[in-house]
């Protein structure tokens, strides 16, 4: 399991990263570097949004599938790497 922690640490310490969350297939956070309430918010909302993004892509073309989701906002960028069993959410404050 040390490998999991090391991988997450490498991601978390990357330039500008504010938070890293791993979510399971039900949308429940299983690893996080943020506080409880923020984590629960991000996990719930982004799980829903990622599912919606995925169905959008597949509705347009059933042979296609979602590989990555990025949301750019005024304050930062949220990146979601989806997968069958888990989802990785990384929040970054890009350089200005």
């Amino acid at each position, binding site marked *: *399991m040390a*490998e*999991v922690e090391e*991988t*997450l640490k*490498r*991601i978390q310490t*990357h*330039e*500008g*990263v504010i938070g890293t969350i*791993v979510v*399971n297939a*039900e*949308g*429940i*956070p*299983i690893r*996080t570097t943020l506080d*409880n309430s923020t*984590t*629960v918010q991000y*996990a*719930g909302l982004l799980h829903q949004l990622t599912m919606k993004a995925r169905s959008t892509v597949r509705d347009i073309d059933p042979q296609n599938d979602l590989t*990555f989701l*990025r949301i*750019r906002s*005024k*304050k930062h*960028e949220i*990146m979601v*790497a989806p*997968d069958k*069993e*888990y989802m*990785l959410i*990384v929040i*970054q404050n*890009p*350089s*200005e």
Partner: protein
Amino acid sequence: MLTDPQDHLAHQFPLEGELRPTFSGLSDFLHRVEDMIVKELAKNAKSHAFDGFDVNWEDQNETVSCKHRLQHLVAQEKGLHVTSISWSCTGSVIACAFGRVDDGDWSAEKSCVCTWNLDRRGLNPKRPNTVIDVARPVMSLSFHPTSPSLIAGGLYSGEVVVWDTNRTQDPVLAQTGMSTDAHREPVYQVAWVPGQRRGEMLVLSAGSGGRVLLWTVDGGSLVLSAGYALVRQQVPHNSSLSKGRGSSNVGVTSLALSPWDSDTFLVGSEGGLVLKCSFSAQELAAAPPDGESVALRAPAQFSFSPRGGPVHSLHYSPFHRNLFVSVGTDGLARLHSLLQPDPLLSLRVSDSYLFGVRWSPTRPLVFAAATGQGLVQIFDLGRKSLRPAATMDQLTSGQPAYCMEFNPCQTDLLAVGNADGSVNIWHLSTELTEQGHRETAQLEQLANEVAE
């Protein structure tokens, strides 16, 4: 099947040192996505793709404009000033209290509290929707935080009243009357604070008699639930205090409740003191008992460096737990950190008195100050220049602007109450209300500076 995320969190965010539960496939998953994520993070950190890219979701408002000028002719004819204003929790209704701020014996003057519903069709700025007649001048006003029809008010006589604007017959819901528990001097500040029980709200009142009292609504009366007395001998000293004359009571002219810590509050006094106080203070006040039904406690815990005259207004920053701003008769706006006695910053706002100060509810670096010359100056601490970012003339022919409040829902509206009996509702520009990219960080930087 939906499961409650909170339950899972209790098991899955283990404390340090405990074994973490293993998830099959987690390591493989992370292995798969790591490279992709790191590549995107690196690209992002160097990218200029979004430089200067802005999206306008809202209509851009370029200018600051006065949307309404509310007046109650009867009160104006009597020469009454607007002493206090308050927005209802829904943001639709503005209430204003009439009284007088200058010297003179006008304790027998009748006055009123007026409300206007700004969202109603057919708004007539010269005709309030509700007029509550009050036998004495009203010095302070506060709408209940969740019940849009309840208003608490503090009178010149020391009485505290709660009105219910839904009642048609007699709007008075509860009052202190002239009991031995009541203030004997004008009540300059009223506020609603949460009580011990869920959903219970108490009325807090503070006045120039040096008393800060908490009341519960019980039938038609306000019953004293707890009380504090500020006495000069019990004020923590950390700088020389001017030797005042006469009474040892510390008259309260302003009070601010902390949005971060429900136990702390700030008090500004007639003599220029700014004190950090605690509701849970246990020490008994050194004031001689005067028939109060509750033992009064001494709440002051920390003194900030005093000012040269009465402190008219204090406000905690909504964006930083340790910052507050204070204004008084010396014409300066002082930015303080709760952690040290000396101010972080002293801004010369006006050559006249300052009566009100409010932080912007949306921009961490912005605050507004109301001057004795009838201007509201808005300052942006993010700007290099210390000159105001905007000046709003209240059109009072030089008479003071006494009080200001931002609308809690439509945060680009600012109401200003004036000595000429008018209340102006200002619509602020997008520049003054839209939070900038690094504002919270800049505010944090300011807060961490240590004063020389």
